[in-house]
């Protein structure tokens, strides 16, 4: 198990190196430098700026020095937010996005697992059809549509909840969290239903029932652990999706998190900010994929044996 974790961590290093390299050269091959602004800037100013950001060196030298900085966790200054470093901007946005993602995940897991397990307990009844139709609607209702519709209904027409901001007015965290969480609740409902249905048909569940355990205990003590493995394996990709979703949700609800910074950096052509954030977000996503894989293995003895066999 530990050996597997370490080997996976080591495998992440070339992937990360590739991310840094590809993003660096992509950004540097962009037509038009970061300072080719709408206004005419005197050449000596451009020269001074290029010196300040090391743009006068050959590209490979810039790459090496950037790589050296990144390894030490330094993403350099932002091009457009003058006087602020990429690290500062990430540090400012990360707690907000992390909180948003946490609440969204909470919504997704609680609603999704309840609906999915409930559906699997009585397949092909109303208790199955209703939540599963709901899940299908959730999957087909992207966050950039659901968010505005929720704002329209609960924010504007009913006037129950604030429609923008984060932590300024009580209740302003509710709509963004639901908007971001709904799609994942839908996926998790489908995954946990499938996983539970498979586990519930196993012999050891029949044994548990034959012992005279109540259905509740059978589900909680015996079925959940196996039935939720697909959900756990989905957590890594879901986390990546939550980050991408935060781009939209933070834009809709005007939340000053990582997602909004990223989208704004994309529009402002703030190359250092984009470069730094891409690398930072990629690292996060790769780490979370690793974590969710490890968790799935820890939950599934069969997989554990397979790994022991191959090592």
């Amino acid at each position: 198990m530990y050996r597997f974790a370490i080997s996976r961590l080591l495998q992440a290093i070339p992937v990360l190196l590739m991310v840094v390299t590809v993003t660096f050269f992509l950004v540097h091959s962009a037509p038009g430098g970061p300072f080719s602004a709408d206004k005419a800037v005197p050449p000596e100013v451009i020269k001074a700026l290029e010196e300040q950001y090391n743009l006068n060196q050959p590209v490979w030298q810039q790459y090496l020095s950037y790589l050296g900085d990144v390894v030490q966790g330094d993403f350099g200054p932002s091009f457009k937010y003058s006087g602020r470093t990429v690290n500062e901007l990430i540090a400012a946005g990360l707690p907000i996005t992390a909180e948003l993602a946490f609440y969204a995940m909470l919504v997704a897991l609680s609603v999704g697992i309840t609906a999915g397990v409930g559906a699997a307990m009585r397949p092909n009844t109303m208790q199955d059809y209703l939540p599963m139709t709901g899940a299908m609607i959730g999957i087909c209702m992207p966050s950039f549509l659901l968010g505005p519709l929720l704002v329209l209904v609960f924010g504007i027409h009913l006037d129950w909840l604030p429609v923008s901001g984060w932590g300024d007015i009580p209740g302003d965290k509710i709509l963004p969290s639901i908007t971001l969480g709904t799609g994942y609740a839908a996926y998790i409902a489908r995954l946990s239903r499938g996983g539970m249905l498979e586990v519930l048909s196993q012999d050891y569940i029949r044994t548990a029932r034959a012992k005279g355990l109540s259905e509740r205990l059978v589900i909680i003590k015996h079925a959940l652990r196996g039935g939720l493995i697909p959900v756990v394996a989905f957590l890594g990709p879901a986390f990546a999706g939550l980050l991408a979703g935060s781009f939209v949700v933070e834009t809709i609800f005007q939340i000053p998190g990582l997602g909004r910074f990223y989208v704004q950096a994309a529009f402002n052509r703030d190359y250092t900010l984009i470069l730094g954030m891409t690398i930072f977000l990629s690292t996060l996503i790769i780490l979370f994929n690793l974590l969710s894989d490890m968790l799935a293995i820890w939950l599934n003895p069969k997989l554990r044996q397979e790994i022991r066999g191959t090592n």
Partner: protein
Amino acid sequence: MADAIEEHGTSLWKDAWIKLSKNRLALFGLAVLIMLILTSLLTPLIAPYGYETQDLDMGATAPSLQHWLGTDIFGRDMLTRIMYGGRVSLMVGFIATAVALVIGISWGAIAGFFGGRLDAIMMRIVDVLYALPFMIFIILLMVVFGRNILLLFLAIGAVEWLTMARIVRSQVMALRNQEFVEAANSLGLSEWTIIRRHIIPNTLGPVIVYTTLTIPSVMLLEAFLSFLGLGIQPPESSWGLLINYGVETMEEFPWLLIFPGIALSLTLFALNFLGDGLRDALDPRTSKD
């Protein structure tokens, strides 16, 4: 004997069709899809107004007899806008999926057929690419190279082929050792011919299912990017872009958000149901009851 074999040969597809036709939601999905494709093909002929036809005096109006879905703030007919937007959305869905199909099938078929070292290397590349956060990369690509529709097709297609490669590979691995492949081999057919004539056609079932499910996810990705302003650019239009515009004015003119939203959701709904139905129908493991 010959008849029996013939009947057995057609029965997979026939059986699949019978199963599919019992699945009302999947049939509904199929009907919606066919209608959408026809509408998109015929849009220039059947759209009630011109794409850029404006009635500035009118401005945004609620749905009426002249304009079934109302007009936008420039007095342009919403139904027409949605029809033209749907053309682009569907086109992105189909073309990017086709890109993914071609790369994924070739990659998976080659890796699975030759196996061994080549397979190990090719699949390792897929594993590495899987670990990359692609949504972020697509945004980066759009930023760096400008918001070009061709690039969008390529970028999305290049992301979506990975799963297809895995599916095809595992299918091919299973097929490789079957007798009919051995027979083709002993007849002296080249390996490429065997892949093309014997292996690929036999992987069609799962490929069709996965394709049906890829199209909606690609359309969603396009709408997502267009909503952020990083996908399709005006004067072109797509459902994601229309939703983006709709959000800006949703307080006064909610129909400008709701109708493109319904169009997108309904399409995703239909394609997902069709995909689910096809999966049940084409999976030989599901019983015939």
